[in-house]
């Protein structure tokens, strides 16, 4: 059981900044995220795109913003449960919560802050009618352990970076790699496109474009896929394979959080914006893009503000009897849980003779 003061669901910019504000109040945080890395949308969807409305940053790349936030919160030693989705929540008699992930990891905290953005990112599945019959029986949407493809015949579908990168990687592992894409053009990094070209020329990747996988066959598990050339319907190819990996990107879904008894409006969680962004369940807060209230704007800078007020409220909830007033970092400095201390340099007092 992982124990912490504030359990943050979602490691996007809002969730990450909450760690800093909590740290100033000596509260420890642990973050859960369905993605394998921190940063949320900023890392997953647009790491190389600029943002122009972060106060004090005329321009910052989304990926760099995440890097900076990670650096800023490092002294507060946040814990991370990555690659797991928060599945269930249980309220204990003392008012604290136990949140369990889809992999069974349990987290215990007196305060839960949902900073879930648009939801957890789920793989986008192609529209094939018997697709679910073969899930985990030859079809996977995420590659966890490439070794399971050793000496196997693999077909990958998609035209983005992950389709290219995994085709390249698996060309050294699998006995046969086929890449199927609806266009001749790929939109990955130029370097990856060129690598696939070289591997295709060497016969290490079998490239079928423009084409689509339109059928799945197999008795107990996947045995073959039907590949249709989109230029000419008469050229269907029945391709014998052990594995099919559709890589069509990820799309966010609110998911299990929608079943936690929270008041939901417009795919977002209703919160009290006049006070502390608490939900209808005391002790559960929602901050950033995942919440809604009159006048809500889904902006990173608004998420930062919401995270800050949430932490103040969480502190009062955890320590109802402690006296506290907010202190400027310039005055109080930043004392990390790792023993580090940052503070404004003292003014030099020296006589001018």
């Amino acid at each position, binding site marked *: 059981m992982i124990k912490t003061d504030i359990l943050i669901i979602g490691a996007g910019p809002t969730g990450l900044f909450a760690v800093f504000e909590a740290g100033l109040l000596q509260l420890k945080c642990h973050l859960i995220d369905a993605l394998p890395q921190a940063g949320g*949308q900023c890392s997953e*969807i*647009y790491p190389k*795109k600029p943002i122009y409305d972060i106060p004090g940053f005329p321009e910052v790349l989304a990926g760099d913003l995440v890097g900076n936030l990670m650096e800023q919160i490092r002294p507060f030693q946040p814990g991370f449960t990555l690659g797991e989705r928060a599945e269930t929540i249980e309220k204990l008699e003392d008012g604290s919560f136990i949140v369990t992930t889809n992999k069974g990891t349990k987290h215990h905290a007196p305060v839960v802050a949902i900073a879930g953005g*648009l*939801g957890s990112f789920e793989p*986008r599945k*192609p*529209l094939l009618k018997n697709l679910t019959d073969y899930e985990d029986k030859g079809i996977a949407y995420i590659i966890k352990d490439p070794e399971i493809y050793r000496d196997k015949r693999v077909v990958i579908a*998609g*035209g*983005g970076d992950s389709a290219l990168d995994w085709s390249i990687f698996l060309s050294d592992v699998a006995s046969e790699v086929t890449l199927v*894409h*609806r*266009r001749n*053009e*790929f*939109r990955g990094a130029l370097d990856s496109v060129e690598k696939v070209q070289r591997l295709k020329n060497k016969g290490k990747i079998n490239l079928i474009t423009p084409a689509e996988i339109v059928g799945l066959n197999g008795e107990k598990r996947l045995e073959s896929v039907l590949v249709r050339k989109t230029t000419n319907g008469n050229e269907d190819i029945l391709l014998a394979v052990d594995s099919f990996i559709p890589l*069509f*990107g990820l*799309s*966010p879904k*609110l998911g299990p959080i929608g079943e936690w008894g929270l008041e939901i409006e*417009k*795919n*977002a969680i209703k919160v009290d914006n006049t006070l502390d962004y608490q939900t209808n369940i005391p002790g559960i807060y929602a901050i950033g893009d995942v919440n*809604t209230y009159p006048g809500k704007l*889904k902006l990173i800078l608004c998420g930062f503000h919401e995270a800050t007020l949430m932490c103040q409220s969480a502190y009062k909830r955890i320590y109802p009897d402690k006296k506290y007033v907010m202190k400027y970092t310039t005055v109080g400095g930043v004392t990390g849980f790792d023993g580090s201390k940052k503070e404004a340099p003292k003014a030099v007092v020296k006589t001018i003779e």
Partner: protein
Amino acid sequence: MSDIKIKITDREGVLHEVDAPTDMNMNLMEVVRSYELAPEGTIGVCGGMAMCASCQCYVKSDHALPEKSDDEDAMLAEAFYVEDNSRLGCQIHMTEDLNGLEVELAPES
């Protein structure tokens, strides 16, 4: 600059005739959101970067639309329910030339 009329068929098949401003730097996805013709969270997920295809629509009228950018073209190559007249709403900016535009929202995926 004045408003233009646009006909939008939502995902339930209901036709809406709406006024879209041409002076607010708005795109079709944002017009749909401003009239709440699709639930929040199901359209414009990436915010308009041509990176999610949640605003895919079918263009029914024969308006001359701007060419697809490489980003839009690549995204449509990976999206589902794509037809020859598919476009990403976020890449269609509201201009006076588009008065009378007719579109249908593609299914959510």
